């Protein structure tokens, strides 16, 4: 089931949480809504679910206008960060809840409900725990029960609100891989919210990067990481360094010196240069950026150094091989291998 969000706007007591957002999600796609807190990603998810109603705009499930439908009618699977399991019910009762509350006409027979719930319990790898209560499970197990419960109603779309946010790093990684497997096996159109970019990059088919109630960029992990279309996306996704530059004669200049980076398509004037700390090459001669090392620290297999460049207030960070001899106060010249220039508005 594909989802179409059409210029949706949401205000909470006149404060706009979402500003005319449009988005298309293709059937069977796994999409991540990524952004800092307050960017409106959870609001967008809740609007799709029907837990909030838009101030303006419409939401379509397939060709059907879902905007005026209640949560119950939309038939969505929703997974909450804090699990939201019913603790007065066993794991099995939690999973079968959605089937048990159906009106008699569409409710499957008891044995069928039980069979399906047990099947889902196997799918989430919790076979044998059906008689437990949620309090007796670990966080990771609880979230898997919550997912099984959401899948039990055969939802048209699956929505997850920071599903791994409350779990520790190890469990998080496991569940991530496992969610991808389940998605590939069941083929549900899935939208999940996260503020963890690593999670979004690893898990999603496409990313929706949001900021201040707007969508900044939509694209595959490669698109968003390698071709960020705004300074916000560049600095939000992955690590980045930036320095103010000027564009003149189709070249980049810093402090009155060309730094050896061509800018054939950028307008002349003040701009900002963005690059990734690990995407640089050290050079011995020719035009380049040069700076003095003011700090350095070991990060895994590389050495991260902070450079002060010719009187600029911002320091930039670059990665060096861990055995590079550069120490404090040494002078280093480098050129970014890949970069983006955004005009300064």
């Amino acid at each position, binding site marked *: 089931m594909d989802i179409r969000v059409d210029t949706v706007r949401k205000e909470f007591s006149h404060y706009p949480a979402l500003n005319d957002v449009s988005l298309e999600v293709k059937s069977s796609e796994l999409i991540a809504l990524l952004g800092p807190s307050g960017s409106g990603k959870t609001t967008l998810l809740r609007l799709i*679910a029907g837990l909030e109603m838009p101030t303006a705009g419409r939401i379509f499930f397939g060709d059907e206008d879902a905007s005026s439908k209640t949560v119950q009618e939309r038939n*969505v699977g929703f997974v909450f960060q804090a699990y*939201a399991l019913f*603790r*007065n019910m066993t794991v099995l009762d939690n999973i079968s809840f959605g089937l048990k509350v159906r009106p008699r006409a569409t409710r499957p027979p008891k044995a069928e409900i039980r069979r399906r719930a047990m099947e889902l319990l196997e799918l989430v790898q919790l076979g044998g725990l059906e008689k437990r209560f949620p309090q007796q499970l670990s966080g990771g197990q609880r979230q898997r029960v919550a997912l099984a419960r959401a899948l039990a109603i055969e939802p048209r779309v699956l929505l997850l609100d920071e599903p791994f946010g409350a779990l520790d790093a190890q469990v998080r990684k496991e569940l991530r891989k496992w969610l991808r497997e389940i998605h590939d096996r069941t083929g549900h159109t899935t939208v999940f919210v996260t503020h963890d970019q690593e999670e979004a990059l690893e898990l999603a088919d496409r990313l929706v990067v949001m900021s201040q109630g707007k969508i900044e960029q939509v694209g595959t992990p490669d698109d968003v990481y390698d071709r960020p279309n705004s300074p916000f996306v560049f600095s939000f996704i992955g690590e980045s360094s930036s320095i103010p530059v000027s564009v003149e004669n189709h070249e980049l200049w810093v402090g009155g010196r060309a730094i050896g980076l061509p800018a054939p398509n950028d307008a002349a004037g003040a701009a900002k240069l963005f690059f990734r700390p690990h995407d640089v090459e050290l050079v011995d001669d020719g035009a380049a950026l040069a700076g003095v090392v003011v700090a350095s620290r070991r990060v895994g297999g590389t050495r991260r150094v902070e450079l002060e460049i010719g009187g600029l207030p911002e320091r930039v960070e670059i990665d060096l091989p861990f055995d590079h001899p550069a120490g404090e106060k040494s002078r280093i010249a480098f050129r970014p291998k890949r970069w983006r220039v955004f005009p300064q508005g």
Partner: protein
Amino acid sequence: MKPSVIPGFGLTFGYTILYLSLIVLIPIAGLFLKAATTPIEQIIRIATSPRTLKALEVSFGSSLIAALVNVVFGIIVAWVLVRYKFPGRRLLDAIVDLPFALPTAVAGIALSTLYAPKGWVGSLFSDKGPLWQWWHGQTWLPFGLSEFSLNFKIAYTPTGIVIALIFIGLPFVVRTVQPVLEEFEQELEEAAATLGANRWQTITSVILPRLTPALLTGFALAFARAVGEYGSVIFIAGNLPNISEIAPVLIVIKLEEFDQAGAAVIAGIMLIIAFVMLLVINLIQAWARRRFGNV
């Protein structure tokens, strides 16, 4: 027992025993000793006399009804106070506690004035009153039903007793349910809604189970308070033997007749029944806590 960070089990436990003994256990033991001096045949005679049995029935029966009514209305009041923001909410919140503060005799007099056949509310229900008029004006009622005379006397009947007991027991359920409702995660309701549950299903299978332990506590408190209530009931009940006479009134009557043994026997019976009922409620509560999570 796990040693706690704060020592002093011996001290606090000793104090608890001493305190309970002086205030609760010794007076009650005295009561039973007094009752025990009575010959057994006399105890049985007093206990099984129709007047005693009727008084106990009125006492426990109306307390039970009042506590049940309070459970229903207590949930609604707590719900309104927790879930909605409206002008005057704090005021309403404070009013809930008034039955605690008001001298019960004042409440009894106010209620009996209101619900007496000539009172504001009582007159509505009286013979040939507005309700009676309306009822007999209904032409659609099947024959027989319209012949049924709609004539309720509230004050000076067991109904009046129930009303007084509802009044004094109301705060208990509201105050026990309120904090649980305040902590209730709204996400649970949202989860139920996304799974297709309608309002009613969400209330019965998600919200009420979570409130059960608190409801039982509130019920037990309201019930216990109602069984022991005297001041407000005597004004509205009319205290007619075998009709609207509660056991505490009977005890006072016995005392006024210098029949201390009789008073002690009835008091002893009341105590035993109340204790057994509270014990049972406590056991149900322990079960509910295990079943529905530690709320």
